[in-house]
């Protein structure tokens, strides 16, 4: 019962307290307006390059933009404790670590899903793509899988962020790499083979492909393999990230320098 309370209530409270993007003055321009313009930018680049249709870029960028809430929120919600001078108190508590850290991931995922869904619906309406209404539900599931995967990656950046001073630089770099490698704007098969290998190990790659196929008429059964891969990748990143956070915690106890990075 205590773990459930820490997971759900503690996670939500920490998310609201540490992720300052939630205030409307930041949320609206950063989470609602910016993804629309990213979609429009790549739609028009795509038209200029005559590479793919508009739907390709709307779906790719709407889902890829979830990296902003997933990476930034996850990093700030854990590594941000250091800047708030509450990290020491957090690490000293006897609270079980799994719900303590993973509970913050749930509101991050919900936030990411909302941002992606908004970008997809509004961006799609502005550009004028034709996605059957029946496909939106399955596409939402594919987006949720992507958000899960990216939140797992966010746990890794959160763990690394505990040891770095410039967390914003790290998360921006990861965002840029996801933009290039995940097939959001360039079909993965057009990338060099070494980049395709990297793409297959990143969140978003399989989920974006699944969402595109769902928009083109495939069923959930047809893309189950892709979604399963996306969830597996997210789980692996989550395990690695959680392990790294625990490692950083052990370092902090041994050297007492965690808050001085």
């Amino acid at each position, binding site marked *: 019962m205590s773990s459930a309370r820490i997971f759900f209530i503690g996670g939500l409270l920490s998310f609201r307290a540490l992720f300052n993007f939630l205030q409307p003055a930041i949320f609206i321009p950063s989470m609602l307006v910016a993804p629309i313009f990213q979609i429009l930018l790549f739609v028009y680049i795509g038209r200029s*390059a005559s590479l793919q249709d508009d739907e390709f870029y709307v779906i790719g960028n709407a889902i890829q933009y979830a990296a902003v809430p997933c990476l930034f929120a996850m990093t700030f919600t854990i590594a941000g404790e250091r800047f708030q001078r509450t990290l020491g108190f957090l690490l000293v508590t006897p609270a079980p670590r799994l719900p303590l850290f993973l509970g913050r991931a749930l509101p991050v995922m919900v936030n990411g899903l909302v941002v992606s869904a908004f970008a997809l619906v509004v961006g799609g309406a502005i550009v004028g793509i034709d996605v059957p209404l029946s496909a939106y539900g399955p596409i939402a599931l594919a987006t949720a899988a992507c958000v899960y995967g990216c939140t797992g990656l966010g746990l890794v950046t959160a763990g690394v962020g505990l040891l770095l001073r410039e967390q914003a630089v790290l998360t921006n770099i990861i965002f*840029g790499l996801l933009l*290039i490698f995940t097939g959001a704007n360039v079909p993965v098969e057009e990338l060099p083979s070494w980049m395709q290998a990297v793409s297959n190990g990143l969140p978003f790659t399989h989920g974006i492909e699944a969402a595109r196929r769902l928009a083109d008429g495939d069923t959930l059964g047809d893309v189950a393999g892709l979604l399963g891969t996306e969830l597996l990748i997210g789980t692996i990143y989550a395990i690695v990230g959680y392990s790294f956070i625990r490692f950083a915690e052990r370092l902090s106890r041994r050297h007492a320098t965690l808050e001085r990075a």
Partner: protein
Amino acid sequence: MRRTLRLLAIGWMLHLKMMSRSAFDGFLGVLWPLFFATVAFFMFQAGAGGETLVYASFGAAVMGIWSATSTTAGSAMQRERWHGTLELLVASPTHFALVLLPVTVAMSTIGLYSLVATLVWGRVAFGIDVPLEHPLSFALALVVTVLSIGSLGFLLAVSFVRYRTAWALGNMLEYPVWLIGGFLVPLTLLPFWVRPFSWILAPTWGVDAIRQAALGGSPLPEIGLCLALGAAYVAAGALVLDRALRAARRDASLALA
């Protein structure tokens, strides 16, 4: 006049040095536009290819100048507030516009690192051979583009002075200017009603001037328009700043926002 020029030059140099050493403003300022340039290069390479890659490479190179300015100009005054130096700067005998303008021009100068990095990256990774038919005009177009984008950053900085989260507004303007400035997409592809917005943006003429100079055309009209718009931004920014500071002095609210 000499004192004013000296003030502008020293302010620019000092802020340029400070920003160059910042991982966020310096290192990320170079790297961030490279991600988008890389995606654009892949898209053009896989799609239309050929001359579109050369067209895109100049726009991609200038993207960094706007990125470096838009993301930080919005919060330029907020930073002074955080450092506790805003009141001192405003109270000094020098007009505050002369203090703030070199800051934003230094931000856009940081973008030159990104410009060079993007052109080199395009050459090394994608084999994009960028011509340089008129080197002197090209250099002049670059300087004017940097100055005019810095001036636009100055206007942003004074316009957002009342907003605590001005950096988010500056961030929000990054993609729109990339799009409607014709950096990667010819303006003819955009809806006709967008074009007047493009025409009042100095970056539109700056990137066009750079392309013209590199490809053998005459960039002088574009350079003139870029300079004129830059001067207009500075004049408008000074007026906005005067109003904002008068209100702040009247209400004793300079430190608050």
